[in-house]
């Protein structure tokens, strides 16, 4: 990636933040920003903090959130995954199309198997062939999109009998009053967070992302670790496809187009560094939720939906800048 962030302090041009307050703010910046924006939005709109609205936002954000959980693991391992958008289209088209042909259970199993296979291809190329992940997943983005179009012949797919199938439970169902997409999102996020924080597997992923050479010298099988991160990412995409396919009960060929960048925006906003070796799932969850609440809040205030993109631009850069300035200060204090 770009050299500026990796280089020594001289090569980086930003200023160092001075006061202790500033450093506290930037350390917890994203959380504070989250709370502040909630307060501001709730001033402007009474419905904003109502239970039904909050649940709606979380439910809407859950598809991006589910994918983001997986991609965060890939990024912590020091790589990128741009193919998740295409992979989401692929999995959604597959599960919806197969639903009427072979029945829901087989369709879901096949969809998971094939999506994991695509993830394995990614993982093999990046992990074992040691190719640049950005270009590999960019190439896969295009190849998978082509594959979907060949498979479906350019036709949109849908489920004929929408009421007579239990498949709808993933997108439209509720468990104890909570929407199933949210439950899937929460369960995945919690499990992956626990795995990343409290298991030796998680520590290995951090080690590989932070310093691959040191990781290999300490006996970590780097290639397998990288490979497995892509499997996790593919698994999350498959879960997201389950939710998306079941909510819409049909699918366009390009339904996931652009998701890879929204997912990245959420992850970056949460404060996970693209350089690998740092980050956490709960930060990503907050980043994704911020994007969701900003979108919702601006809509409730009467702005058209595209204003959120402008706001996203500004806060992404501010968030990363604050984060970077904070890290640089820490770096300076330990050295001097």
């Amino acid at each position, binding site marked *: *990636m*770009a*050299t*500026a*962030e990796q*280089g*020594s302090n*001289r*090569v*980086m*041009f*930003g200023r160092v933040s001075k006061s202790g307050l500033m450093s506290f703010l930037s350390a917890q910046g994203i959380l504070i920003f989250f709370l502040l924006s909630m307060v501001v939005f709730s001033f402007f709109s009474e419905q904003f903090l109502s239970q039904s609205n909050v649940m709606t936002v979380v439910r809407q954000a859950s598809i991006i959130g589910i994918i983001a959980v997986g991609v965060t693991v890939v990024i912590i391992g020091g790589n990128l995954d741009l193919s998740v958008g295409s992979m989401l289209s692929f999995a959604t088209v597959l599960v919806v199309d197969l639903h009427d042909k072979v029945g829901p259970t087989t369709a879901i199993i096949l969809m998971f198997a094939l999506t994991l296979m695509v993830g394995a291809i990614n993982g093999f*190329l990046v992990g074992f*062939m*040691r*190719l*640049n992940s*950005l*270009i590999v997943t*960019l*190439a*896969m*983005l*295009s*190849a998978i*999109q*082509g*594959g979907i*179009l*060949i498979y479906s012949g*350019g036709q949109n797919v849908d489920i004929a009998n929408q009421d007579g199938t239990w498949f709808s439970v993933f997108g439209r169902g509720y468990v104890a009053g909570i929407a199933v997409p949210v439950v899937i999102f929460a369960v995945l996020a919690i499990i992956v967070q626990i795995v990343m924080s409290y298991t030796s597997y998680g520590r290995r992923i951090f080690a590989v992302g932070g310093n*691959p*050479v040191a990781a*290999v010298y300490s*006996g*970590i*099988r*780097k*290639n397998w670790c990288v490979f497995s991160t892509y499997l996790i990412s593919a698994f999350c995409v498959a879960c997201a496809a389950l939710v998306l396919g079941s909510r819409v009960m049909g699918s366009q060929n390009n339904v996931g*187009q652009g998701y890879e*960048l929204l997912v*990245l*925006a959420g992850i*970056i906003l949460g404060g996970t560094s*693209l*350089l690998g070796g740092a980050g956490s799932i709960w930060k990503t969850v907050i980043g994704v939720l911020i994007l969701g609440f900003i979108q919702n809040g601006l809509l409730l205030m009467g702005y*058209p939906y*595209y*204003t*959120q*993109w*402008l706001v*996203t*631009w*500004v806060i*992404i*850069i501010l968030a*990363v*800048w604050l984060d*970077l300035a904070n890290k640089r200060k820490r770096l300076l204090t330990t050295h001097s």
Partner: protein
Amino acid sequence: MVNNMINVKGFLKGGGFVQPIWVFVIVITVFFSFMSDYFLSVGNLTNILVQTSTIGLIALGMTYVMINGNIDLSVGAILGLAASLSVGLQDYGLAVAVIAALASGLIIGAINGLIVWKTGVNAFIVTLGAMIGVRGLIFVYTGEQSFYATNFAFSDFGAASIGPFPLLAIIFLVCALIMHLVLKKTGHGRNTFAVGGNAEAALDAGIRIGRHMTINFIIVGFFAALAGVLLATQMGAATPNLGRDYELWTITAVVLGGTKLTGGYGSITGTLGGVLAIGILRNGMNMMQVPAFYVLVILGVILISVLVIDQKLNVHASKGVSI
């Protein structure tokens, strides 16, 4: 035999006079001219040049940015903004509209460059943000409407030709020549390589790396805007979603052309080959009546193959430990 092998290896590494991508271009040209009677006609070849000029112009600027060790994901959005401005502002006169469109590219390029320079935030993140934000700007400006050119001089420009050569193709080739010379013959070009190759060493050598990075972002912004204006003249219209995914196509073309994502290595001639390879593949497969979907798969496979070949040949350069 052994000598031969070494030559092949050296050639594929790009060390020789002819770049591998150009051999690929020639191979697919020969292939398609056997497969289709109409492929190798002057009309079709100029057509390919016009079709590729949009991606090609952006790729010229992107080559600089990538040699510099950065990346720009916002080019598709800049293209869309410039196209909308160049059509939407025509009530104030054609010149004003085109100048405003080109200026928008320069300004957004400058914003990207300055943020990367002054904050040290990764260019990937900065331009990803800009890509989302500029798309928002387009929607705010157009109000989700498509614009149609009322001034016929504008649409005529896109269809104009000098002799047998379409004007758009000539503009693209002239720009490529200029960018090639700037990269090869000027201090800015040399410094771009130096910064991308080793930012630390470049700084020690007294190169103002921030300025060169910013200039390169401005260059790519300008070319994206120019491509947007020219694309709008071809269509006589602009839609708010114009340019979606163009950043991915552009990066694909530049990487095919042999420019390294890590910086410090690349060339305009290679990029030209990469752009043409994509254009010829798309056009030739259309001629063979292969559904457009297959092009996406083939491009993906080629891109990964290029990476594999490149890595197998440069094992020593990137030698790492592995278990």
